[in-house]
């Protein structure tokens, strides 16, 4: 006989696209695939076990309508969404993944610096808001997928270049 786990034990997996976001409670896994120079920002309130993930592409919003595309407007928007679910801003911690330099010239130099600028913008923005970064896997030259488990806040990071790590 096959014993199926009861529905409340199976975490619901939500995949967050580029320039998008999602929030959830402890029964949720938030994933985002193929982060290159983009950054995935996972915010977690460990008391309410409410978490949110935003996949930003660029440091600053010049006035664009798609506010979760940018680090500055995206992070604030995500916090608001999480507070509506019962999270508290002062309890949030952050884990950040991505910000790579994907393209290289034949001489091996990285050709676009947007990944680095994204990392700086995200770190600065989180510092300004007063959210501590408790885990980070950023920079270098390879792509990453991240899986954010809201039962305990761990983030698994997968890439072709090395073994899966948990931050």
């Amino acid at each position, binding site marked *: 006989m096959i014993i199926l786990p009861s529905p409340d034990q199976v975490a619901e997996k939500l995949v967050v*696209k*580029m*320039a*998008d976001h999602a929030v959830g409670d402890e029964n949720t896994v938030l994933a985002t*695939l*193929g*982060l*290159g*120079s*983009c950054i995935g920002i996972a915010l977690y309130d460990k008391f309410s076990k409410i978490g949110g993930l935003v996949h930003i*592409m*660029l440091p600053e919003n*010049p006035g*664009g*309508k*798609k506010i979760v*595309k940018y680090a500055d407007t995206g992070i604030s928007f995500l916090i608001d969404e999480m507070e509506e679910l019962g999270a508290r801003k002062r309890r949030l911690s952050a884990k950040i993944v991505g910000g*790579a330099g*994907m*393209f*290289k*010239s*034949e001489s091996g130099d990285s*050709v*676009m610096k*947007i*990944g680095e600028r994204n990392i700086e913008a995200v770190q600065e923005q989180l510092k300004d808001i007063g959210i501590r970064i408790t885990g980070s896997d950023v920079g270098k030259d*390879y*792509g*990453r*997928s991240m899986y954010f488990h809201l039962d305990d806040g761990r983030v698994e990071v997968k*890439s*072709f*270049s090395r073994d899966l790590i948990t931050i």
Partner: protein
Amino acid sequence: MELDQIKEDILKEVANIGAGNAATAFSGMIGQEINMTVPKVELVEIQELPSITGDEEEYIACILINFSGEISGKILLVVDMENVEKMLKLIFSTDDLPGKEMQHSALNELGNILSGAYLKAINDFTDLDLDQSVPAMAYDMAGAVLSSSVIDYSQTEDFILLLETEFFAGEEKLELFYFFIPQKDSLDFLFKRLVGDNFA
């Protein structure tokens, strides 16, 4: 930019002429007959870009060339790893491939030749002056590579204009995606050149 029928037809013609010439150059390089799909012209939402060649976690090689001049934009060549190997074997005419450095430089050369042929055909057709940059490369997850390739265009845009062609080499079933991504603002110049100053 709105993509009306007239503009779409012009861009299809441009893509057709460019891709036709690129196919001929490609064929010369690998010594195989090349077939190509009818070019597609599409405005693609940025969010969909990571999966335009299929699975966003598939391992791919991508060659990126910027071009500038009277219109500016990017050219992307995307090949999955299985096809990269097939292609290199054809380029070097041997199953015994040389070291990584030689392989990279052969792929760079392929990028140069295909984009050069494409741009030259557009240049002849439109009389626009276009220069291309040296190629840059990435090997990794499709999503990570493709999203990063056009990230500088996404600052104020939520849609990217894609002119897409796929090339196939007969016997080897070799498949290569070719994307021509003009910066949308720079296209008015092209439309005026081809249709005349009365173009609205």
